[in-house]
């Protein structure tokens, strides 16, 4: 069965890619399986200079999910280009660079540098990280700022730009519209939902950062709703994600309108989950009457009576 999908800048063998932050720069998972099996890879966020991130503990399990507050730890864009990308150049899998920053200038600098590396086929513009004090989600919750940073990055990027949206907004379609006007080539959603968990014995938040981003199956219905809503208002290609653990989940995102589907937290539970989902996908598509991945994209809207009201 044909699993291939084509998105701006990304010729994918299949619609499955690991989500940014859950896969490092690929080396660790490359010891477990052949990264050529993947449709694409989104590498860990890059910022202008090295960041250490937040104090530990940085993760806590929740019911059917987890909270994280890593805080964009990374060696900085120059080190990533020099030390991490050469390894990935050996694979026939498109690499997406997640670009983060505290200021528009930082986003622009990182995007300009990393998009010039031939390994990078697209940028995922991270305006939705909930775990840093400056930048990140402030660009993802204000439509004007979202549009401005998208336009600024588009101007310097040598590759297509997918904007990663935050679910921590009243109406995600407003932000989607804004970044579309800013020139986004695609959308990526959702990032984590902000949450908190208290330790009963310690009488304090479990994460050192207090607040973290909730991911995992617990947030999948939120993600499906948002992909569905955005598909009704724009034709921009969507990389959908949020709580995917099975090929059935992938089909649900395709039906909702995603053209590719990223796997995040599930990699921690089952490190082989991405190749397993890719292996299972043809049977699941066939079971529900589809002849290819392309055939399933957006098909969840055919029998919808009316547009969704804005949530």
């Amino acid at each position, binding site marked *: 069965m044909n699993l291939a999908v084509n998105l701006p800048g990304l010729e994918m063998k299949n619609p499955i890619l690991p989500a940014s*932050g*859950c*896969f*490092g720069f690929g080396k*660790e*998972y490359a*010891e*477990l399986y052949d990264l050529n099996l993947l449709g694409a890879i989104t590498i*860990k966020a890059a910022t202008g200079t*090295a960041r*250490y*991130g937040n*104090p*530990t*503990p*940085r*993760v*806590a*399990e929740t*019911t*059917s*999910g*987890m909270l*994280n507050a*890593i805080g964009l*730890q990374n*060696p900085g864009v120059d080190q990533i280009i020099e030390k991490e990308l050469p390894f990935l150049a050996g694979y026939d899998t498109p690499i997406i660079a997640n670009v983060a920053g505290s200021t528009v200038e930082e986003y622009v600098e990182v995007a300009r540098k990393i998009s010039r590396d031939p390994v990078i086929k697209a940028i995922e513009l991270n305006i939705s990280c909930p775990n840093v004090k400056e930048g990140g989600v402030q660009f993802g919750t204000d439509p004007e700022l979202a549009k401005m940073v998208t336009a600024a990055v588009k101007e310097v990027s040598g590759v297509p730009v997918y904007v990663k949206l935050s679910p921590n907004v009243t109406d995600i379609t407003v932000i989607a519209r804004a970044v579309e006007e800013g020139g986004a080539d695609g959308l990526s959603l959702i990032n984590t939902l902000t949450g908190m968990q208290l330790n009963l014995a310690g009488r304090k938040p479990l994460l050192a950062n207090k607040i973290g981003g909730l991911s*995992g*199956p617990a947030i999948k219905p939120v993600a499906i709703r948002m992909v569905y809503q955005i598909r009704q208002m724009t034709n921009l290609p969507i990389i959908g994600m949020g709580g995917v*653990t099975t090929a059935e989940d992938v089909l649900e995102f395709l039906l909702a309108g995603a053209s590719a589907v990223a796997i995040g*937290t*599930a*990699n*921690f*539970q*089952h*490190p*082989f989950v991405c190749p397993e989902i890719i292996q299972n996908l043809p049977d699941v598509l066939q079971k529900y009457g589809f002849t290819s991945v392309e055939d399933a994209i957006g098909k969840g809207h055919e029998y919808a009576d009316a547009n969704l009201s804005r949530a």
Partner: protein
Amino acid sequence: MIHEHLEIISRETIAKDTVQMTFRGKMAQEYILPGQFLHLLVGEGSNHMLRRPISIAGVDKQESTITIIFKLLGEGTNTLAKAEPGDQLDALGPCGQGYPVDELQIEHALLVGGGIGVPPLYYLAQRLRETGIQVTMVAGFQNKEQVFYEAEFRKLGNFYLATDDGSAGEQGFVTDIIKKEAFTFDQFFTCGPTGMLKAVSTQLEEEEGYISIEQRMGCGIGACFACVVPAPDSESGYKKICKDGPVFRAKEVVLA
């Protein structure tokens, strides 16, 4: 590191809320160092999205078994403890870097363990004895009900016991015993809660030694950056506990 479904061959409660579990599998034939851990999937479905890192307390290559000891601390470990002999557990292992037992050029080792930090030191004590290194073990527990492996340790060397309330051994902390006994040793090896690791490595800062750090982990293979520790002298300024550790030279990392 390999991925394997290990068969549980025994499960036993060896102290209050403390479970010893032994698995059989090919993993036991891997090169395994004390301090390395298994990253265990908990339960079924999507209830528990994070594996639990649990240190290895013993390996029997002839029987092809691996033993772990863990404490019931929450839902994850409670679920883990419900698995029965005959069941299979999804495991990644051996994970991380252990105590470099085959490279040590020492005659006398001081082992200092607190609570659930004691099990990897048992496997360490066994391996040290096999290479002819003399072992002195100082173990600390909250109280008598929590104590385990006292007899086993006594077979391997000198053993000192401290409990917070004095219900077994001496009343006080492991650091009180270290102060009182003023041991002579070549290197120390410690594992336990962060507070204890800090106290022990401060007390023994003139000595060479190794610490093993406990931390909440995500992937367990070095990809997610959940479990890092500052390492000021390293190129990156940090170490990943799951991949570069959990065992470090005491002076290599800075405990929070």
